[in-house]
């Protein structure tokens, strides 16, 4: 009787351990077991480096979706975004690829626009800004011809 109880407890701990590992794997891999409530939109970037399935999509730093998949189409990165239900995107919303810190993980930032029209489920975010190619910019800077920044005309920060 005592032996059976001991085996039950060991088995229970083992099951809990396996459960924890599975949960951790799912969280780390950013996979979703069950589809969230949301709708899908598409966006094409000329440079989508650093994006992968599960990459965060944020507005004002708040996550409102994830990258659901990406592929190459017409030599551009075609990305599918799963956006939370209730988040309305105007047709002139701009999608840009940002980096957390200088060498951090990439994420997609959406900046809401002013259009009266909204992007329907399955629609396309037209306005994009690709990932900044720092190496190319530094290359030009080293060659010494990147025009001197001139903030004339820029509103004060």
């Amino acid at each position, binding site marked *: 009787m005592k032996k059976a109880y001991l085996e039950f407890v060991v088995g229970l701990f083992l099951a809990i351990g396996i459960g924890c590992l599975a949960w951790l794997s799912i969280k780390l891999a950013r996979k979703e077991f069950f589809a969230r409530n949301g709708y899908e939109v598409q966006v094409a970037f000329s440079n989508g480096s650093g994006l992968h399935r599960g990459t965060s999509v944020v507005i004002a730093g708040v996550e409102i979706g994830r990258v659901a998949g990406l592929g190459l189409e017409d030599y551009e990165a075609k990305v599918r975004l799963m956006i939370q239900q209730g988040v309305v995107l105007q047709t002139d919303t*701009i999608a840009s690829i940002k980096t957390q810190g200088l060498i951090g993980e990439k994420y997609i930032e959406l900046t809401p626009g002013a259009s009266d029209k909204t992007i329907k489920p399955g629609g396309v975010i037209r306005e994009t800004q690709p990932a900044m190619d720092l190496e190319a910019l530094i290359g030009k800077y080293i060659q010494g011809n990147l025009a001197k920044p001139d903030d004339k*005309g*820029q*509103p004060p*920060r």
Partner: protein
Amino acid sequence: MLLALVAAGASLRACADEPTAQVRAITDKVLALLADPALKTEARNSERRQLIREELDRRIDWATAARSSLGRHWAKRTRAEQTEFVSLFSRLIEENFIDKFETHHGELDKVEYLGEKIIDEYASVKARISTKDQIDHPVEYRLQKSGKDWRIYDVLLEGVSLVKNYRDQFDEILAKSPYEKLVADLRAKIPQGSP
């Protein structure tokens, strides 16, 4: 990079249904005005600036660019405020563009057009601007169909969007200050005497 702005811009021989032709036309027209020796004199400087301004007005959709730059704050403004904002925004960008055209057009070697993409009433034209120092700058023009013509509403230089740049800045200012402060700042940035 700023030289890339030289290529922003309208035209006489533009074909109505070709975005690239229209971008090429405004670029050629503005470059021709800048290179015209008759207009290079101090006395005719304001005339030259006015001619460039007219070209830009003809081919740039200032209303769309200004509205999109103000982003989510646009809907909160009255009709009169929106009209005033479009006027201030266009004057600011024009003055900024023309200053840069005048400063950097001598460095330009060539402008190559790499292709266009049209989706419904929107188009993008990719170009490469090369300087005499053999450095290339990628530029992308975004256009919207307006009647028979295509009009530019955004320009991406080295992948950085003009509208996105201003939208971020306006957002930041309006998070801390009232709209009136933004308008006062814009007004202060526009040189006195410009139309």
